[in-house]
Each structure stands twice: as structure tokens, then as C-alpha cells.
């Protein structure tokens, strides 16, 4: 093998390419290429910018919170009884110019934020069983806690006037057939809700328990001994009435035990007492807050001694129940 000398190779290479001459149009071609590239740069940047803007727009649409017309109320837990149900609203009586149920429209400004609850605290369906209720940070005192959809029109007054379920300032009426209560709403038409039972004569009230501007329907469902039990239903974002599970509302004195409740500043105070001597009762008062998912105990129960001889009985039904 004979290695080529560098100088020899240099000479050979130079001679080999010596016939190559530059084209006279070379410079013009380069200038034309420069101009073409400069012209292409602006459209390329424009197209790139538009593509980027499109991607940002798509990303925004993808991560954008859902529109307020979509129901945001969380799924409710099972109703009190499997036979309980909710029937659809008949929208024929909806006044013109008002947003229909679930149809997208006005946002309730004053109460909407508190309705967007993120957690559901545990509920205690039996307030008299000695279990200490837990306070809920997401339900501060005095704050309405309903989780209605923002599609409901804002209430005309907070709290709602007695008898006003849909918050429009007009009294609504209720009738019963078997265990189904039909409420004629001035805003949404008629809607009905089926309780496990409803006592006769029909005993009910429409009272704004949670102070959010929409009244809750309180119905006496049954009686055990001398104690009367009450169920509660509330208006959902779709204009329907839905039962709130775990109602602690009961009233009456049964032998040595008494129960009662009253509404106070957007909460329900439930009293449960046991007689110690004669007319003296050791009473435990528990404050409950109403949420769409149920009743939530607030704070610690207060224990007092009540002498019915000198103090009004706490074992009565309040919240507008006659």
C-alpha cells in the first residue's frame, strides 16, 4: 500500500477542480434566495402565531370551567326510602323573561359562592344519641349552605318570606295526595315530592331554614307515640323538590323524653331532653345546618337544665309549623 504524499494530493485535488467555474448568475440567485426567504419569513411567522393562538384557544376551551348553565349540584345520597322520588316540573306556568329550570340564565349573586361546597361533612341523623357532632369549616356560622345551581334566579329577599319556595317573593302553596306533596311554585310551575309517609291531617310549613332566600318544605311524616317526625325537602337548581336526608326534626314529649326544634339564623336548633325529676329536663341542644346532601351538626351540643314549670317548653315544633 502506497500512501499519497500530502503535497501530491493537494496538487491533484486543485487540478481536478480547476475546470470548475462559478456561474455568472450565482450572485443573482443568492440575492433572489435572500429576498424570497425574507418574504417567506413574515407569512411563516404569521402562520406560526395563528397556530399558537389556536392552540392556546383550544387549551383554554379544554380547561375552561363549565358554563353556568350546567348543573353543578353534586350527586345526592340515596333518599330516605327507596319509594321516595322526585317528579319533573311542568314548565307551562313559567313566566316569560325568566330563566327556565336548568336552562341557563341568571346567576344568583349573593348566595352562589357558598353553594359551591367542596366537601360533605358527615351527618348525624339521630341528634339525641349522644354522639358529639363535628363542626364544619366549610359551613361558617350564618352562611347559607344550600348547593343550588347558579341557574336559579336570585331571591328577592334573604331569608325568604314564609311560604316562598322559589324565592320570588310570592307565596307558594302545597297539597298532598297519599304521601306525595305537590307544591305549586309561582316561578317554575308545579312540582311534587314523595315522602316515605305523610300524616293526616296534612301538616307542613314552608320556611327558609338555611336563610338562603329559598324556603324549605317541612312536612310531618309520621308520629311515634307522642313524638312527631318531620321531613324536609328543598328546591334544586332544576326547579324540583328533593328530600334532604337525615332530618333530625322531631317534636313532642313521650313519657320521660322530649324533642323539639326551632329555626334560628339560618340553622335549626334541635332540643332533646330527658326528665330528671318531675318537670325538670336535662336538655341537649344541637345546632344543625342544612345542605343539599343532608343535615350537618355545627359546633358542640349545649346541655342545659330546663324546668318546664317556669320556662317555655323547648319540646315543640318551630320553623313555621303550627
Amino acid at each position, binding site marked *: 500500500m*502506497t500512501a*499519497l504524499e*500530502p503535497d501530491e*494530493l493537494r496538487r*491533484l*485535488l486543485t487540478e481536478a477542480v480547476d475546470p*470548475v467555474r462559478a456561474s455568472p448568475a450565482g450572485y443573482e440567485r443568492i440575492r433572489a*434566495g435572500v429576498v424570497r*426567504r425574507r418574504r417567506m419569513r413574515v407569512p411563516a411567522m404569521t402562520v406560526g402565531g395563528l397556530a399558537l393562538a389556536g392552540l392556546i384557544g383550544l387549551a383554554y376551551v379544554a380547561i375552561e370551567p363549565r358554563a353556568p348553565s350546567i348543573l353543578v349540584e353534586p350527586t345526592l345520597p340515596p333518599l330516605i326510602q327507596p319509594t321516595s322520588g322526585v317528579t319533573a316540573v311542568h314548565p307551562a306556568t313559567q313566566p316569560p323573561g325568566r330563566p327556565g329550570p336548568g336552562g341557563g340564565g341568571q346567576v344568583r349573586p349573593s348566595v352562589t359562592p357558598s353553594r359551591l361546597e367542596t366537601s360533605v361533612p358527615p351527618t348525624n341523623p339521630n341528634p339525641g344519641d349522644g354522639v358529639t357532632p363535628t363542626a364544619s369549616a366549610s359551613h361558617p356560622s350564618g352562611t347559607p349552605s344550600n348547593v343550588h345551581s347558579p341557574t336559579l334566579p336570585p331571591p328577592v329577599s334573604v331569608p325568604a318570606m314564609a311560604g316562598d319556595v322559589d324565592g320570588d317573593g310570592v307565596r307558594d302553596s302545597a297539597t298532598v295526595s297519599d304521601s306525595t306533596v305537590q307544591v305549586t311554585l309561582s316561578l317554575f310551575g308545579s312540582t311534587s315530592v314523595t315522602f316515605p309517609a305523610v300524616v293526616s291531617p296534612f301538616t307542613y310549613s314552608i320556611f327558609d331554614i338555611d336563610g338562603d332566600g329559598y324556603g324549605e318544605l317541612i312536612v310531618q311524616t309520621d308520629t311515634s307515640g307522642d313524638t312527631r317526625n318531620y321531613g324536609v325537602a328543598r328546591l334544586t337548581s332544576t326547579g324540583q323538590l328533593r328530600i334532604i336526608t337525615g332530618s333530625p326534626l322531631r317534636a313532642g314529649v313521650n313519657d320521660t323524653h322530649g324533642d323539639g326544634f326551632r329555626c334560628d339564623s339560618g340553622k335549626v336548633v334541635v332540643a332533646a331532653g330527658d326528665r330528671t325529676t318531675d318537670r325538670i329536663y336535662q336538655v341537649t341542644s344541637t345546632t344543625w345546618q342544612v345542605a343539599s346532601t343532608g343535615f350537618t351538626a355545627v359546633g358542640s351540643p349545649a346541655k342545659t337544665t330546663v324546668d318546664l314549670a317556669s320556662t317555655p317548653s323547648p319540646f315543640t315544633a318551630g320553623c313555621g309549623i303550627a
Partner: protein
Amino acid sequence: MPARSDAARSEVARDADAALTALYSEHYRSLVRLAALLLDDVGLCEEVVQDAYIRVHAAWGRLQDRDKALAYLRQTVVNLARSTLRRRLVALKHAPKPMPDAASAEEGAYTLVERAAVVQALRELPRRQREAVVLRYYADLSEADAAAVMKCSVGSVKAYTSRGLAALGTKLEGLR
């Protein structure tokens, strides 16, 4: 990064135009010859060099050391020659055999190049050996500069050059 003002931009453009003209008049022909040694098809060498000039002009504002514009231009020619060879290999694999073109008068010079024994021997070398030999002995680059253009170490350039020289010697001896 602050936005460049229009005045600064136009100044860079003027600077690039002037540099382009100077680089063309001084180095265009030698770069075309360099490309002719690197490419299999010498007819493409002018196209490659013109493209390199256009790219250098477009990147003029980003050049950190404008005194090294020639080195940058040379490296662009080498890179484009590599890309062209790669594209031609793919095209040759898939394209049907074309009818032979009738040679024009301008292509006479290229035909002479094609016929040169050293060019034929050079084309039989592996690509890196060919680049090392051409950069070292035609472009007269130092080993370090050739390594920078080829994006490899100086040691590799030495090895490629040594093997290339040996192979060329054998091939040329066989051709004679």
C-alpha cells in the same frame, strides 16, 4: 429578550448584504470547488453553496463572531453536502432509473472533474474520510479547524486523514 428596534434591524440587514457581497467575491468559487469534491454529483455543488450563502445571510444577526463568517459558511457547505448526499441516497433507492441527460456546454467543466482520477478515487472513500481529506488538503484547514467543521475530535480527523490518504494512494495506483 428585548425587541430589536427597526433601525437596528435595518442596520444588521445592510451589514449582512455587504458581508454577503464580500464573501461571494472572495470565496464563492473556492467553496463551489470544495462542494464539488464533497458531492457525488458536481452539478449540485453551486446549488448547495448558494443555499449556504442564503442561510448565512439569514443568520447574520445571530453570528457572535463575524470574523468567522467564512468558517461558518464552510461548515454550512459541508452540512448541506451531507444532507444532499443523504437525500440522494434515499432518492436513488426509490426512484426509477432516469433517461440519461444530454450534457450541455456548461456542464463540460463538471465532466472534466468527474473524469479526474483523484475525484473518482475520492468518491470511493467513506464520507468522513473524504471530508477529512478535502478539508485538510484542499481547503488547507488545520486539524483543529477540520475537526470543528466535521464536529468530531482532532484525533478522529487525524485517523480519517491517515486512512483516507492510504486508501487514495492505493486507489490511484490502481487507476494508473
